[in-house]
């Protein structure tokens, strides 16, 4: 299992990146609540990150699928399905006209995703270490 160490290293880095994206989103939302940013700029800013975030996560999941990491795959599949469903319903983008009404929901979603990426981060880290140890033996 030479590749799995590298794969999980990639996973760790990806999860860290996604983690920071979520932290960024949450900071932006609280800026909006404090009137540091107006809803139009906020939505323009965040919307540039929405699809890359989803795509990156989907790519990571694809890597797990190709390398046959079933546990990691099943961990990530629900989120992929959730994202796909949002895109299908065309409500994945932030809407400046509705942002104040939906802000609570957006924040909740971001916090849940934050928690998920955090868990994933430690899980990938653990799997990476396990892989490295088994490799060195």
């Amino acid at each position, binding site marked *: 299992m030479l590749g799995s160490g590298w794969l999980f290293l990639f996973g760790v880095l990806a999860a860290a990146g996604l983690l920071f994206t979520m932290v960024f989103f949450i900071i932006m939302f609280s800026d909006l609540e404090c*009137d540091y940013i*107006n*809803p*139009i700029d906020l939505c323009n800013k965040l919307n540039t990150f929405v699809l890359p975030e989803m795509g990156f996560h989907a790519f990571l999941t694809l890597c797990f699928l190709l390398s046959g990491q079933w546990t990691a795959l099943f961990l990530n599949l629900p989120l992929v399905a959730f994202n796909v469903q949002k895109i299908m319903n065309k409500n994945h983008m932030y*809407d400046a006209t*509705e*942002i*104040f*009404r939906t802000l609570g929901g957006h924040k909740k979603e971001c916090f849940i995703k934050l928690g998920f990426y955090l868990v994933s981060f430690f899980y990938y880290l653990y799997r990476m270490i396990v892989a490295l140890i088994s490799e060195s033996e």
Partner: protein
Amino acid sequence: MEDPSQQLPPGWIAQWDETHQRHLFIDQNTGQSQWEPPALPGAGAPAPGPAAGGHTKRRQYAAGQTQAYYGESGVVHPPAPGDMAGNAVGGSSFFTPAGGDQPPAQPSGFYNPTAMGQGPGVFSAGGFVAPAQPSAYQQQQPQVGALTDQFSQMGLQPGYGQKQFALHTVNLVGAFLDPRELVGPPPEIRLPPGACVSQEVTANADYTYQRCTMNAIPTTNSLLGKAKLPFGLILTPHRSLKEGDAAVQVVTDQVIARCRRCRTYINPYVTFIDGGARWKCCMCNVSNEVPQMFDWDQATNTPGDRWKRAELNHGVVDFVAPTEYMVRPPQAPVYVFLLDVSQHGVASGMLATATRTILESLDRLPNTDNRTKVAIIGFDTALHFFCVPSGSTESTLLVVSDLDDVFLPKPTDLLINLTEARAGLETLLGRLSDMFVDTHSVGSALGPALQAGFKLISSLGGKLIVCTSTLPTLGTGALKAREDPKVFGTSKESSLLQAADAFYKTFAIECSRSQVSVDMFLFSAQYQDVATLSCLPHYTAGNTFFYPAFNAARSEDAIKFAHEFGEILASPICLEAVIRVRASRGLRMSSFHGNFFVRSTDLLSLPAVPLDQSYAIEVQIEENITSPFVVFQTAVLHTTSDGERRIRVVTSAYPTTSNISEVYASADQVAIATLLANKAVERSISSKLEDARDALSNKMVDILTTYKNTMTSSGGGASAALSIADNMKFLPLLTLGLLKHVGIRQSTQIPSDLRAYAQALLTTLPSQLLIPYLHPTFYGLHNMPPECGTIGEQGVIMPPPLPLTSERLERHGLYLIEDGQTMFLWVGRDAVPQLIMDVFELPAYEQLRTGKATLPLLENVFSQRVNAVINKTREMRRGPYWPHLYIVKEDGEAAMRLWALSMLVQDRGAENLPSYPQFLTSLKERVNGSSYT
């Protein structure tokens, strides 16, 4: 003051006894029952049934309320001393159900078959009971006092030294609801003594500017949660003034005192401290310096009197703003007309009517200092720009057919000064519709036209006024005919009410940023996607008007559009406006409904504030309120159409209470219904129509259950009565009206354009228009009292409105049903030829045609009175709308008949909609059921 005639002492209920045909009164505390109404000094017959009720109630109608209602509609019936006996006068009066226990042939009307032979003399007959009785009003005084006494004896805590709200409980089951009570003012706001620095009654803003769902605010969030009433503010800061309305006071000396911490404007509810040198803010308690100019009159250079200043005496006041309040110099009004010149627009006569109306309205457009600018752009498959050089009478037409990258063909002379280019503009408008009379182009580049108009005025701001007859099909913002009748009535229906294309939201945001407001006038006979197109007015604070299947060949259509369009053009507009609502500590504005863009958590941005548009704001109690009263202050910073920067400040104060009965006794049912309508529309778009309806009926069950458990002695047990406070007794009926409304109701038939337009109206109409829209007005014309339709002291005297049930339709009758947007003239199948002759100038009922009509004004008294009533209906509520008149025959076209009957909301509707008694029964079952658990 509320009408107490239906009131019973606490713990008493009235039950209708079928066998004895009278009320049985039961004291629920002791179980004792009696036929006589329980003793209340001076009380009339309590809780009368539907049949006997009319007279008793009307006899005791509070004079104040009558005044308030007829102040609008102008009916003041002379007091008739002989009518004191109430019930004794004519069993044939209007409030007796005609179809039920009485034969229709009874001589109740002026035009019934038996009365025929008597000729016009019958006009003076009839059983009419005067609704207002000064003497009865006098009688009520001791009664209310006694009630209040009783309440204080019962140990209800006195508030903060102010007068108590007396809670009157009524039983909704079998209760008679007089439609006139709906138009009265909300419960009085009883502030503690000393709350206000002014003695003026105007110190609190009039409810037509700002009203709260409760006129006594709960001190804690848990009390609010317990009462289940929605907490919100209904605003109409820019309302029209009719003759007799007090003009808004203006502070012209540019001395604007504001709190240094929370930026509240000084108002009658601040307190002066330190011998008057400082003032304490009523919102955040910070002390601020009083400007020296408060005691100095700049105009005369003499000492002034601060107590005479308008901002300390008036709840509604306009400040002339100094330059700090300007981002740029005040802009002139700018109007860009985007006119559909495609074949649809030309063939329907829309273009001709629109250009003629603009031409006729040129003098009425706000243009005090000759700065107003105008542009006209036509669009079909290309864009047609009209270039009018100033001073010339000629105009040139420039056609741009590149729709992908919209550009302006000429940098100047497209947007022209109204005064300078008047001659050219008049010539252009005069022949514009002829220029396109032979057009064959089918298609609509609305999106590119909007972009072009935006380009033209984005640096100035102003109004884009769109008149379009078709679905946009070309370029950006092209839409598809997505309507699918199969999803009507299903959970997918709300997707048809959402915007189909993101362009209409992003463009709206761009417009809002550049201070451009969009008005939409829509005319299509086919699907036009009103839901998507109305997004632009929604987020840019404009108006949407919809004329389905418009055809100017019908004079009624042309008159309606010309009137409404003309009113919009002539109305003074507020430009570049922002609205912020501030409230006392502990209160927070949590969500906003209406036509605007929410720019930050508490700032609403409106490129233009239209006249008579209403906004609803939900309020949250964040921390416990300790002060004896709270203040809400709405500030609208705007530029008037005269080019002056102004701030309109609307301040109203409400007492607080820790007593749930006061919360109920002070609830404003009209404001609650307005807020519920706004929330229901939002829910139906963001979620499902079904959810919106469920939320409405659940809310009603919650309120009634809590009321029963806390305010009546039956507590948690089952009860035959359905109790609610007298001042909220219309709430279930209004909710039913909303549940049955085109915008909300369960149906598999309603085209989504009609739904979307109804929803747009539900969220923008001010209360005086919204209430009839939910609860139409219903008059009997054939038997109206002789003075109705004639000019009284306050204009045309209106007939007394009837309850909204078809039981009141007599077969020989003539009725008017109207909801402020549409009027139906209902003709009974046995209407006598004389009536048909007098009103329609036709020999017989058979010759009468169903449909849109203009009533002829004939040389007979009855025709003139009917016309007077119809004209009064059109103008009595402030607003731009001109309702169509439809003639409906009792045995005529089914669709038209059902439409008219759907306005009688107390009846069972089509598609299994419940009648009002059925609705009450289901509410009662749920109230009793939920209290067992």
